[in-house]
């Protein structure tokens, strides 16, 4: 557990609301983007983000001080994001939706003009879920393999192998669709 994580837990034990505010300020933005990369839709990401922190708030007293607070929060967020994505699988916003052709499905919070960024997200979303998760946690969140292994319920070496496989698949996907 890092010093920041300890400070947050100590603040929560002294004053639950102030401590939880500190936790939100530290994690909400990175957790939102982590969820968003899984759900794609902003509305789904917002719901999953709220549900994640509601669950964190309810269980914060039971968090194991020996475990990583970051890994615990990311794990809850990953589960919520996946649940949200599965729940809305039929109505989900896709990066394949083209503005003007399917207005009902288009998310106004996606920049469809940034083709390179769209293509990279498509490549990531085409990966098996565990590889997708591992790639995002390493590439975007820069988490170490120990923490990633805790989140994805694997081992650090398996997480490392997963990341490199994912990276290779993404490069192949990008080349095949260029």
């Amino acid at each position: 557990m890092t010093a920041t994580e300890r400070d947050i837990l100590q603040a929560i034990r002294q004053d639950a609301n102030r401590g939880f505010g500190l936790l939100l300020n530290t994690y909400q933005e990175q957790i939102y983007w982590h969820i968003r990369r899984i759900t794609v839709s902003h509305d789904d990401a917002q719901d999953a983000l709220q549900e994640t922190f509601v669950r964190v708030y309810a269980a914060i007293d039971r968090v194991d001080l020996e475990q990583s607070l970051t890994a615990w929060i990311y794990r809850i967020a990953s589960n919520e994001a996946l649940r949200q994505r599965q729940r809305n699988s039929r109505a989900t916003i896709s990066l394949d939706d083209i503005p003007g052709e399917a207005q009902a499905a288009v998310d106004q919070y996606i920049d469809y003009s940034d083709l390179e960024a769209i293509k990279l997200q498509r490549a990531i979303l085409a990966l098996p879920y565990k590889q997708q998760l591992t790639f995002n946690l390493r590439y975007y969140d820069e988490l170490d393999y120990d923490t990633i292994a805790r989140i994805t319920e694997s081992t650090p070496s398996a997480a490392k192998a997963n990341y490199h496989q994912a990276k290779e698949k993404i490069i192949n996907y990008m080349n095949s669709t260029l």
Partner: protein
Amino acid sequence: MNAQDLDRIGKKMPYKVPEGFFEEMPSRIIERATRRQHRNNVLRHVIRYTAVAATIALVWMFADKVIFAPQDDYTSVELAFDQLSDDDQLYLLEVYQDDIFFNY
């Protein structure tokens, strides 16, 4: 494309958020979390009180059957009646023989 090209794209994403989204979220989350906790506390109390009420009801039903159950016959009343004098017995019979509650 190779790994270097991927690094060039970097962390750029096509996703945006509404204006002021991250400023508004903490208060919304805290409100939802405290509301959920309050609801769960109420639910816990309801479950606890319902369980207590159900237990009391069961005990009452059981006690009613065991403690307040009528005797299998009127032996004790008859024994008491036998110990009365003939006059008293006659008096009681005259008074209560037409009583609707006794003859119910």
